């Protein structure tokens, strides 16, 4: 399974600081791509969202929870969608990456406890 940033093993959560590029990608996701995908978006809209989220994988592992929440929002929008065949492989990669992110954050919380 690959990590959210495309790596095999996700780095420990909370270590990096999101870049300015990540900030702009977050804006793009939350202002354009996520609203478009969740309001009846087609395959291309979902692909654009998944692609942008992939670029936010490293930022989503940091302490800045806005980036993880972009993934949360995408998951909540995608969960009720009847996933078309053409989107399945991409959706599976998105869900695997999201699960890896959650696992990384949980592992970090357990480490703190």
């Amino acid at each position, binding site marked *: 399974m690959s990590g959210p940033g495309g790596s095999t093993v996700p780095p420990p959560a909370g270590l990096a600081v999101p870049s300015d590029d990540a900030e702009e990608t977050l804006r793009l996701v939350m202002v354009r791509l996520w609203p478009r995908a969740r309001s009846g978006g087609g395959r291309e809209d979902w692909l654009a969202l998944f692609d942008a989220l992939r670029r936010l994988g490293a930022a989503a592992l940091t302490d800045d*929870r806005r980036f993880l*929440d972009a993934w949360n*929002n995408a998951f*909540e929008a995608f969960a009720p969608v009847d996933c078309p065949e053409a989107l399945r492989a991409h959706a599976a990669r998105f869900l695997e990456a999201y699960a890896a992110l959650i696992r990384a954050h949980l592992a970090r919380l357990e480490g703190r406890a």
Partner: protein
Amino acid sequence: MKAVALCAHLDKALEFRRRLAAEPGVELRLLVCSRRWPRQLLKIGAGRLLPALRLWRRGTLAFTRHGLDDRRTLRRLRAHDADVGLHATDVIYRSDTLAAFRLGILNAHIGLLPRYRGRSVMEWSLLEGDPAGVTVFFMDEGIDTGPRIVTRREVDLSRFRNVEAAKGHLFSLDVEMYAEALARLREPGFSPSPNGPGGRRHYDMSRLFAGVASRILGCDASPERLD
């Protein structure tokens, strides 16, 4: 000081009038900007219709169906020659509208600037363990990036048991906060504080995190909690 309250709803305009009319040194005008203002007028009920009509006849209250950046509205705003606008609409202002006021347009934002810009900021404050509150600042064309903060107040939300009620409370403080801001602006030598760097733009919070914020609020709630 001359102020124009820019309102999406007639009810809000009347609230401004009720709470700011007695402010010393403030000359208040009300502008209701809505395509539906005739319907608002019909639905307002006799008790408030007559005072509204009196204000309209006196020239204190005006209505427009046009957008705030429409040239007809801009002409009207400029004619007021007002010091400040008070934001109570749901639009982002363009530079022409902002420039129609000598000092600018104030916004009562339900988050503590400069840290919390954007949306769901009360929930984000709760999630991050920071105080919640309201900030009044002069707007620019960006999202809560206006560089001059006039006043800010931390607000204790511990008596609320859910996010909606807490948020409603913060929103309900807007006119009171505007009154405070106008008083500050009238103080001799007052200068706004900077809406400095270090702020982050926040976005709609997911249901997952909103649930966590709500739980944090519930855990912190005092025995005399409100719905």
